[in-house]
């Protein structure tokens, strides 16, 4: 194709918080391809745009970096791609280096490092609107002369704010002159600033004022608690009608397809009981995940997230974590999948791994149906001390049990780790910004895409496998027990019963655990199936209340605090860590914790009630 010959391949580089991603979105709009770099879990974003002349550009958004002397996997990629050393990536024709015009003391040093690479490049002085508001004056021709590369002004969050950059890229870029950059880049930056930039104040007054409240030891923690509370409220109450809508929609379409397949009972069962029930059970969490990410992205764009990490760092450090672990763990209360995805913002690989390993201990919303069933069936609805509801207290205790054990596990991981070298915080607190709706919308679209791809791929396949296990072989002639009892899953359930009898699980629970592996809350519907097909007519809650002992119910609750029974989470861990070993470690330790907790709960409850 003649077009591809003329396409100029550009790489976008810059310090973290320079507005690089906003500029990328401004340039490419929705035309982006998101993937991972070969062999690593660093996100690779590529897009296209064209100049008014018709010339087209291919733009690669490289991870933000403070230095090309890489200190993190992200920075290694930025360096190697710029140098053309990264396997599978061709060296860019030119580099667009982005610098925040209000933060040049830090960002110009990186520009000088990039300039040393000797490739054609343009400097985009971004956030010029904020710089003008703060009275910062930059003599662009002088800066251009000092740097020896073209310099253009951009405002990534304004319509047409990158027009000058596009116009400059459309013209021939000058060959790179020989630079006599000395070893002291800092001195060079100081000289340039003294010569070309006048700055009335080192920081924005508004940032100082906001930080006095947000980082205040008392007010700051209070505000953080309020924000967390609001997020929780939104995730659980705003999402409810949407989740009901998805459930009803999936059920409706399932029933409609089912009617169409009425002549083929086997296929009908696969589609309706397998695919629609299984995938629908996971899809229903999409609204919660999107609302959660809406808040996280808005907090991230605004510059608040590093502040939250600042406030909580000391607390998390005691457990062997970092302040940066806080948001991923908070997300995991909705679902461990977005939580584990959010650990990408943790730079230290050890801290990131620990956070991933304990994320499933945060009580995700998929456990709520199980908790709700058992609490309603076994815990009397009475008040204690006049103000607390006993059922509420039990639910709260289950949440706390998860958090406390997560901190315990993190602490043990810290003890066991061989590499005891210091973990760094070293975190920039960027200027506050009003989040741009376009950037949040694009971010949400990416998250939804990742989630839906997973639903369509691994979760769909696992659902079909589980359906097969639960449906074959079919019940023999004249069978009295439910069909699932004769299936592979039923046989597996009976085997499992031998293992789970000491913790008080009956065979019905064991069978329900098998399909519950696909999605935790499916265990409830499976229990309903097992009992319904056994000829029980009453509701599940009544059956459970009359047939199970309290010790069994408590044991199952304890099991669900820990149980690693979510294949989607394990698949996410595999993807994010690129390692089966971590998947096995996680499965193993969660299973052991679950078993021990249930064993203790069951035996103690029996001893006490006897």
């Amino acid at each position, binding site marked *: 194709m003649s077009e591809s010959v003329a396409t100029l391949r550009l790489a976008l580089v810059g310090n973290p918080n320079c507005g690089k991603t906003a500029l990328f979105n401004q340039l490419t709009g929705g035309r982006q391809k998101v993937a991972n770099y070969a062999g690593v879990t660093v996100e690779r974003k590529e897009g296209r745009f064209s100049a008014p002349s018709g010339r087209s550009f291919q733009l690669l958004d490289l991870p933000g970096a*403070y*230095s090309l*002397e890489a*200190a993190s996997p992200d920075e290694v990629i930025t360096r190697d791609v710029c140098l053309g050393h990264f396997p599978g990536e061709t060296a860019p024709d030119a580099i667009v280096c982005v610098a925040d015009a*209000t*933060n*040049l*003391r*830090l960002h110009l*040093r990186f520009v000088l490092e990039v300039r040393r690479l000797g490739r054609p490049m343009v400097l985009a002085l971004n956030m010029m609107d904020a710089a003008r508001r703060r009275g910062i004056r930059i003599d662009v021709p002088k800066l251009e002369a000092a740097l020896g590369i073209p310099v253009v002004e951009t405002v990534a969050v304004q319509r047409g704010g990158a027009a000058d950059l596009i116009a400059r890229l459309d013209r021939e870029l000058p060959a790179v002159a020989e630079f006599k950059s000395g070893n002291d880049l*800092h001195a060079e930056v100081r000289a340039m600033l003294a010569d070309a930039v006048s*700055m009335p104040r*080192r*920081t924005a007054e508004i*940032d100082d004022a906001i*930080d006095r409240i947000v*980082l205040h*030891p*008392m007010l*700051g*923690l209070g505000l953080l608690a309020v924000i967390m509370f609001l997020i929780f409220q939104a995730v659980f109450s705003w999402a409810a009608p949407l989740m009901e809508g998805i459930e009803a929609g999936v059920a409706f379409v399932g029933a409609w397809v089912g009617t169409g397949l009425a002549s083929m009972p086997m296929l009908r069962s696969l589609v309706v009981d397998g695919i629609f029930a299984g995938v629908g059970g996971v899809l229903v969490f999409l609204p919660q995940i999107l609302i959660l990410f809406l808040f996280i992205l808005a907090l991230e764009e605004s510059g608040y997230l*590093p502040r939250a*990490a*600042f*406030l909580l*760092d*000391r*607390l998390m*450090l005691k457990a062997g974590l970092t*302040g940066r672990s806080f948001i991923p763990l908070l997300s995991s209360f909705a679902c461990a999948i977005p939580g584990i995805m959010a650990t990408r913002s943790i730079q230290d690989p050890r801290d990131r791994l620990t956070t991933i390993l304990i994320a499933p201990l945060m009580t995700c919303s998929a456990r709520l149906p199980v908790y709700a069933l058992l609490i309603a069936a076994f815990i009397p609805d009475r008040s204690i001390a006049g103000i607390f509801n006993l059922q509420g207290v039990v639910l709260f205790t289950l949440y706390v049990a998860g958090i406390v054990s997560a901190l315990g596990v993190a602490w043990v991981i810290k003890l066991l780790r061989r590499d005891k*070298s*210091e973990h*760094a*915080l*070293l*975190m*920039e*607190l960027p200027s506050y910004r009003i989040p741009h709706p376009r950037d949040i919308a694009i971010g949400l679209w990416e998250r939804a895409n990742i989630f839906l791809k997973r639903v369509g791929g691994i979760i769909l396949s696992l659902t079909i496998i589980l359906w097969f296990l639960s449906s074959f072989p079919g019940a023999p002639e004249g069978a009295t027990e439910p069909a699932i009892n004769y299936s592979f899953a039923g046989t597996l359930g009976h085997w499992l019963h031998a293992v789970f009898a000491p913790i008080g699980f009956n065979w019905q629970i064991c069978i329900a655990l098998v399909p519950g592996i696909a999605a935790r809350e499916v265990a409830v519907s499976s229990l309903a199936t097992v009992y319904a097909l056994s000829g029980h007519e009453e509701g599940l809650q009544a059956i459970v209340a009359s047939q199970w002992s309290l010790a069994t119910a408590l044991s199952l609750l304890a099991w669900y605090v820990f149980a690693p029974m979510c294949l989607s989470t394990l698949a996410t861990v595999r993807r994010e860590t690129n390692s089966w070993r971590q998947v096995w470690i996680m499965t193993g330790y969660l299973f052991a914790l679950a078993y021990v907790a249930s064993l203790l709960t069951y035996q103690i409850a029996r001893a006490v009630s006897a």
Partner: protein
Amino acid sequence: MRLSELPQGSDAVVQEVENMSEGDPIARRLRDYGFVRGEPVRLVGRGPIGADPLLVQIGFTRFALRRAEAARVIIEPTA
């Protein structure tokens, strides 16, 4: 004096960043951030628990540094 000992709200000038180990990556990163000789620095605030981490202004940027990290930075307080 070390940056970790600077009173809240005080200004100082960086002397140097000490390596705690051979090729200390944290010290190197601090230098990248602009903690180099002659650079004015200010201790803006402290974390709510155990007065850790520290909120430090260097150049036009604010960083959160744990005490152990800030202790690598040797400073000269300005009167």
